[in-house]
């Protein structure tokens, strides 16, 4: 009995490892290619480990002007996250507290907004922004467009967190002499802190990886984020695969590290609402 169990477990583990390997292979290939020289990249059969690892980080950083791109990415991601948190936290709270038909309608509409793909929305957004003259401020216009896209996701996540904060705590604060806003800021927000943090991190990661809006709304090279920058180096005639892969590795590694470090909080925040 016990033996069978152990075999079954080992089998399942093997399957899981194979699937994870399959899933992570592109990531592995990115790192490996970044370390290969041009001749080695085109060699057949491909090598799974470079003969003479060639680290080109500094060279790529300077040649492809990554400093500017990453700076733009960071501005757009932080700006988007800040606006989403500022607007979405109160909204999630209201949707968690007020019950009724109209709130259900509102929640449904919010969920609907998530369904619309950015590639579909970009044309009307572009036309509207150009009419308002917002395209003069390309990074701001990307931030606004992204806020509209990501706000529903944030609101739904944060609403779930606020649902976990017992209503009686807020009522106790009201009776103890606090105003509604005071009770929200002093009782609800501190208790929903973990959930808010996790949702904000997820929003920021999404904003970092965004491509469609930035590609369409930002014409000028100097304002483009890293995702668009990377794309401009790739084409049918690309030969600098090492440069492209190094660029991608530089861009992705900090995000990966961040995610791995916060992995436990993110998972528990998503599943439990992070109160207890």
């Amino acid at each position, binding site marked *: 009995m016990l033996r069978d169990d152990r075999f079954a477990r080992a089998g399942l583990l093997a399957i899981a490892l194979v699937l994870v390997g399959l899933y992570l292979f592109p990531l592995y290939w990115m790192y490996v290619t970044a370390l290969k020289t041009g001749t080695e990249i085109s060699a057949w059969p491909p090598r799974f480990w470079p003969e003479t690892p060639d680290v080109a980080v500094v060279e790529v950083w300077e040649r492809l002007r990554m400093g500017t791109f990453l700076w733009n990415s960071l501005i757009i991601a932080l700006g988007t996250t800040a606006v989403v948190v500022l607007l979405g936290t109160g909204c999630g709270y209201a949707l968690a507290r007020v019950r009724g038909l109209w709130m259900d309608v509102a929640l449904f509409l919010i969920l609907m907004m998530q369904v619309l793909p950015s590639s579909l929305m970009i044309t009307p957004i572009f036309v509207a922004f150009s009419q308002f003259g917002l395209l003069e401020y390309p990074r701001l216009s990307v931030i606004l467009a992204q806020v509209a896209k990501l706000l529903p996701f944030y609101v739904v996540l944060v609403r779930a967190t606020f649902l976990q904060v*017992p209503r*009686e*705590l807020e*009522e*106790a*604060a*009201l*009776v*103890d*002499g*606090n*105003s509604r806003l*005071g009770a929200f800021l002093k*009782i609800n927000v*501190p*208790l929903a802190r973990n959930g808010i943090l996790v949702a904000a991190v997820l929003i920021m990661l999404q904003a970092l990886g965004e491509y469609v809006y930035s590609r369409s709304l930002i014409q000028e090279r100097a304002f483009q984020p890293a995702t668009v920058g990377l794309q401009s180096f790739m084409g049918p005639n690309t030969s600098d695969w090492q440069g492209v892969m190094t660029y991608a590795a530089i861009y992705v590694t900090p995000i990966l590290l961040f995610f791995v470090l916060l992995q436990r909080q993110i998972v528990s925040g998503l599943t439990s609402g992070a109160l207890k």
Partner: protein
Amino acid sequence: MTYQIEIEGVDKHYGAYHALRDVDVRIPTGQFVALVGPSGCGKSTLLRTIAGLETISEGRIRIAGRDVSSVPPRERDIAMVFQSYALYPHMTVAGNLMYSLRLKGMSRAQARARAEEIAAITGLSDLMHRYPRELSGGQRQRVAMGRAIVRSPAAFLFDEPLSNLDAALRVHMRSEIRKLHNRIGATSVYVTHDQIEAMTMADHVVVMRAGRIEQQGAPLELYDRPVNRFVAGFIGSPAMNFVEGLVTEDGRHVRLALPGEPALAFTGRRPPGEVVVVGLRPEHLTPVGGDQAGGNRLELPVALVERTGSASYVVSDTEPSILIAATERLAGLRDGMFAVAIDPACVHLFHSDTGLALDRMG
């Protein structure tokens, strides 16, 4: 007499649902009032309207003479103890006690001194730096009480504060709360579904059902003179027995719908031939020797005898069954017939349709 809380003609609607119907309660300063009733009767809603956590659709609420009907909770100067205690989980015991004082604008040092003082009264002095999650149920309960007392409010509101405790602790806290009230003397409103809690703790009991006040008064007045069948059945433990009956021709006896159609005398007089519901409290049915003659007697077949030591309960083998609570051991009793007597003054009569208690002309 000055009234600390006055509730006049209060109505509350939730959409189509009528939660409170024309509620009037006046609470004299320093009294301990219990709101009691089955779940969904509106007692908690009434408490929450006093606190200002629910708005009222109609009527008026005054606290300490001031009309607070449309005043937010923080300006009502009341303290509330919640069923779940609602302690702020991200604050220590000291933080919980000081929170309302700090909101009032008291300095940190003053608030801490006051919190220490209250902690000494409630026995929390050693726990001041702990968080609520590190406390036992009874300790949390005491923090919740302390948090209410610390403000010296115009009134205390309790929302079923003991229902999360185990039976032994509940009895203990019951007397603690009452002692505390005797010492502080602040007006208190206490919501409970447990009529024993209401009877033992309160000066004034308000019995509610379906958003309406059925009867209010001193605990023993409710026990002795319930105005209707609902109050009669709700107050008192074990609950009152109800049997259908027919008033006899002399208008002074009622014939019960039990085997043998026994007749019981009651005080006063009712129209002969009237169909009534007779209420008999289990503890008013006293066992008498089988051969003893006379008295207001009832002879019943025995279905079951339960002995707890302090009391014995006999369930009759009739439809409906009659419960008898006796302080005797009833040692030999097993089955067969069992005779009880009842004082005519303890025979309650109710209208068979409306359930209202029937007046008896002298």
